[in-house]
């Protein structure tokens, strides 16, 4: 059985993520215990809400250090929503806040105006189509994750801007603007949308990521 860890740091949606993983045949361990994290085959970092609060909680439990150390081992790490945003260097939500710095780049507010000039409703709450942004030559374990475009559920007001365009794995469009839907660097991947809330398509993606990540 795959030793799959979901990080519990008091920042929401862990119930949904664990339910989705159970549905596709895994038995996730919901934990903040350092030893359990160290011995994991794969770690999932969920989260909703504000960036600063997510980072505060990670630090409070010593998980910032623990996750950074885990990421160095080369084992797969998947961030979801705020769990994806904190993989970046920095967020400008409610002032500047440092992230885990596992993927170079910043997190900034989505532009409130559509390309047409119309007001763009924020948060971006919608099922939006996600398409691969990189060449299909990627050798990473998640390399084929976005080969087929699919609609996933987004709910966010801020988005990641990776410094290196190659680290943007997939994009969606909102109001004519490109939205970073997924980021990835080596063994670390993050998705802005909620696969655990994206119906059969979301479950399929989660299954792919866990299966290929732990193969």
């Amino acid at each position: 059985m795959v030793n799959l860890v979901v990080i519990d740091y008091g920042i929401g949606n862990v119930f949904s993520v664990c339910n989705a993983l159970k549905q596709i045949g895994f038995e996730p361990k919901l934990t903040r215990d350092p030893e359990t994290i160290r011995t994991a085959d794969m770690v999932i970092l969920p989260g909703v809400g504000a960036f600063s609060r997510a980072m505060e909680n990670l630090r409070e439990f010593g998980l910032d250090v623990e996750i950074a150390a885990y990421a160095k081992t080369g084992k797969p790490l998947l961030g979801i929503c705020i769990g994806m945003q904190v993989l970046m260097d920095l967020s400008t939500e409610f002032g500047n806040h440092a992230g885990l710095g596992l993927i170079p780049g910043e997190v900034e507010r989505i532009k409130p105006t559509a390309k047409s000039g119309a007001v763009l409703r924020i948060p971006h709450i919608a099922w939006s189509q996600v398409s691969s942004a990189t060449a299909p030559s990627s050798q990473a374990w998640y390399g084929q994750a976005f080969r087929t475009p699919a609609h996933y559920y987004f709910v966010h007001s801020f988005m990641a801007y990776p410094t290196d365009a190659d680290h943007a794995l997939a994009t969606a469009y909102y109001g004519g603007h490109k939205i970073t839907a997924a980021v990835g660097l080596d063994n670390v991947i993050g998705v802005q949308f909620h696969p655990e809330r994206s119906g059969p398509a979301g479950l399929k993606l989660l299954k792919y990521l866990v299966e290929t990540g732990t193969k």
Partner: protein
Amino acid sequence: MSVRLISRLDVKMSHLIKGVQMEGWRKMGDPAARARKYYADGADELLYMDVVASLYERNNLADILREVASDTFVPITVGGGINSLASAKTLLDVGADKVAVNTAATKRPELLNEISDTYGSQAMVLSVEAKRLSGGGWTAMTDNGRNHTGRDAIEWITEAAERGVGEILITSIDRDGVGKGMDLNLISAATQAVSVPVIASGGVANLDQVQAAIANGVSGVAIAKAIHNDTLNLIDLRKGLVDAGVPTRPYSKQEMPGG
């Protein structure tokens, strides 16, 4: 941008119920079983409302929610009787993605700031029951249209957006359960007043009526009676929207495991 088709489930104790203009409630089935059907039919979101919660000052949906959230995998919003950070947390912890607040916020608007500051604006929905006034405009009401708040519905949603709510759910009391289409003037006023997403509820029974609501700027349409009594099917509705060129999430039942 794709518009969301939202299944609205009003619940009293353990029953799915539905009324007309928020009165004369009738039992419509099992709230968990119906949610599973709507999920299988491709609902983009589920909206649960405990219609007697404010009366008893507590939301009774935690058990139903825990059950439904473990085998349906779309966002769930829950409303009814949420009057504190603690009551919001109880529901968010058992699988709700968002909480919808009405009565308690009209009495103490700061609650909207507190919930959105703590759980994020994406988890905070303002629910408004709007009743058309004979002299024009709409008044915000609570407890299924029984009690007046003295607030103008459009001014109230504008204030709520400033307080950080991430979404507005606006229900037309006049159109609720009537099946004659939504109050398009109300929807239009609401979508123009705020720049957060607006979900409209009350009155849709067919494709044309859903399209009319979408044309007035809503980000989502909540449907209750027409799907509860099977006069409208979400799969057919979605197909109709796609054929009409309205962007929605593509969905076919074949995607469901074993479907």
